[in-house]
């Protein structure tokens, strides 16, 4: 049964409040004055379909949801409430809205196609509450190790963290987020979505993604969404940081990497030799200086494990492979730009690049693309809808019309 105009008006108000927007902010998005929004929400002014679509995008809900019974007040809106900064910056707001629209479109297509691929397979963990920073560190370390084991990742560096999350049914988005927010994770039943700040350097995005993965594993059962601030660190954030370090740079993996470079190994290494047809025990000795980890090792380690040099330095210190004095020295040299110069010298500086690196990390757009084409093939959506979805997935017109499904004259 269709709802009446009088029933729609309070739903619009509830949706706005759930997303934490003021009437002023909504008026700005609609190109109206604030009293006009108040009138719409009081049922005294009609809403056009264009305005409905703008509100739908702004509040992160499909237009149809305003007319469904029962009316679901919250939906994905919780993530807007958690990030008031994102509502203030129009660029960030557009990016966030687009991300949420992609998620909603994926969920809708999954439903249409009868797929449950998106259902997250991340095990809900029952964890003891963290009371101290030390407990957060211990939990982070343990869970990182358990997760690597569960996922059978061994000790090797992770080439594509996005693929790891994808294998667990987690959608990954890279969005332009306000400075100070490295990412966020939210539940959008049955999916879990992890988003990272596309404006960060690629190495930072990888780290943030695994940090968010920790939230998906540990925290998302208790709360619908969690935002990761670069500066504000509660115990959950500390745990997620330690998790990310341990997951991306496993202790054994680091030690094996360093051993391969003759670093952090004992001064005497067994090196048996054959003398007159006899095997003679022999120990090769390396000087202390040759065994010391230097900044070039840090640069190569950061590239090998796909993390920032700073993260690599901290990890070496946490594993007690360098002392506090050396850590300080490395960090100060890194600040001076030494690490960057070395990386450039070796032609391995691409991880430093800042700016939207969406293709490198996202899986949500790829999923949207494949679902949209599948739905069009099955005649579940029109050609017009397919084109709209492909644009939402980030395809340019020139690429869209290369697809036979998008053409009017399909051969």
């Amino acid at each position, binding site marked *: 049964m269709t709802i*009446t105009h009088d*029933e*729609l008006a309070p739903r619009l108000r509830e949706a706005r409040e759930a997303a934490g927007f003021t009437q002023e902010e909504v008026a700005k998005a609609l190109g109206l004055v604030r009293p006009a929004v108040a009138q719409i929400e009081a049922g005294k002014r009609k*809403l056009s379909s264009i305005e409905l679509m703008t509100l739908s995008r702004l509040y992160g809900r499909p*237009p*149809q949801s305003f007319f469904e019974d029962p009316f679901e007040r919250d939906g994905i809106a919780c993530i807007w409430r958690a990030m008031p900064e994102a509502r203030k910056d129009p660029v960030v707001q557009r990016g966030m809205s687009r991300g949420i629209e992609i998620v909603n479109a994926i969920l809708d297509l999954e439903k249409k196609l009868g797929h449950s691929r998106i259902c997250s397979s991340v095990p809900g963990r029952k964890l003891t509450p963290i009371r101290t920073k030390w407990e957060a560190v211990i939990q982070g370390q343990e869970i990182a190790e358990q997760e690597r084991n569960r996922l059978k990742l061994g000790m090797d560096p992770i080439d594509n963290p996005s693929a790891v999350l994808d294998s667990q049914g987690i959608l990954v988005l890279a969005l332009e987020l306000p400075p100070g927010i490295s990412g966020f994770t939210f539940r959008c039943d049955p999916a879990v979505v992890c988003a990272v700040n596309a404006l960060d350097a690629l190495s930072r995005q990888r780290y943030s993604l695994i940090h968010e993965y920790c939230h998906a594993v540990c925290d998302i059962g208790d709360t619908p969404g969690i935002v990761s601030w670069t500066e504000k660190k509660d115990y959950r954030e500390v745990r997620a940081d330690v998790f990310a370090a341990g997951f991306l740079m496993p202790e054994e993996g680091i030690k094996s990497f360093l051993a391969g470079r003759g670093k952090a190994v004992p001064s005497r290494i067994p090196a048996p030799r054959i003398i007159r047809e006899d095997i003679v025990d022999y120990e090769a000795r390396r000087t202390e200086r040759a065994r010391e980890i230097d900044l070039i090792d840090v640069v190569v380690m950061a590239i090998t494990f796909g993390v920032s040099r700073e993260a690599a330095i901290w990890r070496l210190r946490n594993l007690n492979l360098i002392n506090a004095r050396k850590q300080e020295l490395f960090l100060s040299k890194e600040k001076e730009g030494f690490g960057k110069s070395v990386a450039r010298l070796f032609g391995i500086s691409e991880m430093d690049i800042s700016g939207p690196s969406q293709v490198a990390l996202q899986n949500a757009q790829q999923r949207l693309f494949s679902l949209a084409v599948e739905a069009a093939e099955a005649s579940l959506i*029109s050609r017009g809808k397919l084109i709209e979805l492909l644009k939402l997935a980030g395809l340019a017109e020139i690429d869209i*019309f290369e697809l036979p499904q998008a053409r009017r004259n399909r051969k």
Partner: protein
Amino acid sequence: MGEDKATPVVVDANALIDLIKLSALIPVTKIAGYRFLVVEEVVGEIRRPGQAEILKSAIRKCCLLRVSLNLSEELALFARLHAVLGRGESASLAYASRHGCLFLSDETQRAFMREVIALIGEKSLIRTPVLLACAVASHTISLASLKSRLKTLKELAAGPKDRDDLEHLDRVLDRLQKSLEER
């Protein structure tokens, strides 16, 4: 008063673009017995500057009437359709369904046709060749001018969308010619 008795026709974005490309928009809107409507969403979908200008001019000259959906039942239908159809298609079909209009579109894809048949019936769906045949019959445009325009378009075509559109227009004019020969 006379205008009210004319049959309203809601025009979808692709048909509108085709008519603009063929320089046939104004001549078509002069066919007696019809008045042509375009929903806001479709206006928003005509983004190429030259085409948008022609559309604006047609609206200014009242050849096309710009309409919007704002009744709650229209909005509900639009929202439901938008889960399956493009934005312009959803708005056009919702409007046509609620206001008893004909719908001008050349789409044939099954998901689209399913909704059209369920909401307005296939008889209320008109195709561009039929409309152009009416325009030729009422001497507001000639087949020769359409063919000449298509030839020019082919010379200017750039990109896969243009090529796709031109292939479609080729078929439109083929059908138009056949229908004129049958008359």
